[in-house]
């Protein structure tokens, strides 16, 4: 049971790290569209005629935020 004296404080640290990660992800626009990615993954050919769509858009997103 002595392990708990270490693990419980540790878990608090983990929660605060999780909160920090969440805020970073939220700032980066990860949660802006929660519906679209699930739809897009169903399509096989993500790239059309040399124009690298997913790359340009994600870079674009990073710039904005």
């Amino acid at each position, binding site marked *: 049971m002595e392990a708990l004296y270490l693990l419980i404080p540790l878990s608090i640290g983990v929660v605060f790290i999780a909160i920090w990660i969440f805020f970073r992800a939220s700032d980066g626009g990860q949660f802006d*569209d*929660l519906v679209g990615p699930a*739809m897009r993954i169903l*399509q096989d050919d993500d790239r059309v*005629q040399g124009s690298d769509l997913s790359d340009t858009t994600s870079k674009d997103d990073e710039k904005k935020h």
Partner: protein
Amino acid sequence: MNAVATSCFHCGLPVPAGSSWSVNVADVSRPMCCPGCEAVAQTIVDNGLSNYYLTRDGFSATADREALVPAELRLYDTPEVLGQFAEQSGDDGELSEATFSVDGIRCAACVWLIERQLVRVHGVQAVNLNVATERLHVRWQNENCKPSDILKAVREVGYVAYPFDAVRHGEQLRRAGKTLFRQLFIAGLSMMQVMMYAVPVYMATDGTMDADMETLMRWASLFLTLPAVSYSALPFFKGAWSNLKSRALGMDVPVALGIAAAFAGSTVATFTGKGDVYFDSVTMFIFLLLCSRYLELVARRKAASALEKLQHALPASASRMPGFPSDRTTEVVPAAQLCEGDMVLVKPGEAIAADCVIVEGSTAIDLSLLTGESNPQRKLVGEALPGGAINATQAIVVRITKLARESALSTLVKLIERAGQAKPQLSQWADKVAAWFVGALLLFAVVVFGVWQWHDPSRAWPIAIAVLVVSCPCALSLATPSALAAATDRLVRQGVLVVQPHVLETLHRTTHVIFDKTGTLTLGKPALRNIATFGTVPGTWCLHAAAALEATSAHPLAQAIIDAARHPRAGSGSAAATEIVYAAGQGIEGIIEGVRYRLGSAAFVGEIALVPVPEAEDAGLTPVYFGTAGAWLARFDLADMLRPDAREVVAHFQQNGKKVILLSGDQDGVTQRVARELGIVSAHGEYLPDQKLDFVQDLQAAGAVVAMVGDGINDAAVLRAADVSFAMGGGAALAQTHADTVLLSSRLALIAEADQVAAKTMSVIRQNLGWATLYNAIAIPAAALGLLNPWLSGIGMSLSSAIVVINALRLRRIPRANRTLPNAAPHAASSIAA
């Protein structure tokens, strides 16, 4: 052609018998219901995107041919308008970026189709579609591509897009939503973690957990509750503070007080090591309350964006008359392009684009949106008009005195605010009751504290906190708003936009439902009902001959005859007419195969037929006669078509014990006939707008609660007077601005749907309030008597709120039977019923 299949491959509507529209998709000929769908499907196949049909999991929206590419789209290319929604980027400003709103995204295949289609447009560099917000972000080269090309490309595959100005509208709401989402997430995380330390303490039997361990768990819970209280609960503390500043006892006060008291009490208990801790209750309470707030915000944002779509389907434009007064031709220009001194024609029902002075004509101006003045104001030549006002009666010519920008904008902003801000009466009532409840409760807690202080001082403080925590008026405050938010959200998804918040509760109490006829119960345009022939000439030949005569006419009756002749049921046949002469207001004359024919009114055709009209006319139908020298050939009976779902809607209200009344400005005969067909007992024709208004007010004076369903300019006053009003989405803009509810598609059945949702919402609210009352009646006395230990009161509080929220969420679900496409307008059925 596939003769067995009966539904359109593209949109799923039934294919009219005998039609021949089809498209080859994956080497199989697929039937199409209308030329619009055919054009869209052909574009999709031609662009090599037929994969769309393999992966979609539902039918597409019906494509309206006229809506495919309106000429007004080019207005977006002018620098003035472009500057309003697009941003220049790149090194030399050779790139533009803009955000567009897209309608009708239903499945993964839609996303794929739109993105693929746009990447093909020459000059488009990057495309990104956000499905959750229905926003499309595009970057393009100015040289090779114009906004109208992008909008056209989207429309060609059957979706409607328009520029979205993020800075001007949704930005604030979006940011609020993002903050609330973060607060919700933190509260949820915190709640789950705190629960992890709370449960072992509850579960442990006496003596199995040593005091050190329990203290450690308490301290851990305290740290984990901190983010929830200091960050997630901010909206409640802020709300409570502003409540107190304005000396009102709102719902946020007890919520904030409950959180603060429970947290402070628990913190003290943690430091001293004596008493109970309520960290789990605090976090769960915050989380559940934020859940309902988030739901409300999402519903409001959806309503605002739907309303905005309605207003912004096309750019604000004006009809400029460059050659006035010598030349009266008009040209459509963007409102932003109007300069001082421009002459502009303003038709009835149109909004005035900018501040101006009347040059010709007199009219009544509706200022209600700008000033709240309800009666239209009479305006004569030389009087000034403010931009954003609505011309109510006559066409006028005006001279612009100021640039357009501000006025048009203020109208829009006002409308959108109206959609979200006002609180429904029921909610206000619940807030008021809750305020009293809170006052009484605080008093009660003080009394309980005093009594225990005298009886057993060591238990006084924990019990007072228990009373506050267990009774937290959470369930009571959540009961109404969560149900209303869930119902509004569901209705928006179905295409019913609730502008005024009182709609759901009033609709439920409605005793009388009044329908307008033209454009509401009917489609508002004539269609051929019947052909009566008087000679040996077959009716189909007469129809084709008549269509040939009318071929170049734009008259609505002519259009109905042409449409009927084109319909596959009319069979094939062709005729060419020469030497066509129009007689204004009477008819048309021309020569077909060497014989002179006339088409038009009985008197006009009678001039050459020279014998009396053979058959009596049926009242309620508009007859068009067809004849030649010395003989009557046929009579075409035209009538306004009923909407296909009109009967169902009328029956729905009648079954629910509401009185259905038909009020129309049209001839009494026509009105009575429509009423007979729909089974409406009470019908009144030839009612002027004033009489309609009097009629509604008389009913209201007699104690009736009136719902009005209308469309058109002359309904505006009645729509406002009625207790609850609906406007058809296709109707004149004026009617919409006065209506409490706007139907975004032309499906009349949505009104019945809204009525059902209203009834369900009310019963959910009743259940919620009943449950909250019952719970409080049991829990508060128990807590006051000291019977509740902390975990019982915590769980009781959380459970009571959770039940309320979950019960409300049931309203969001759309039953499978009603899950029809909101955009599947019944225009396919409008073509003919000859």
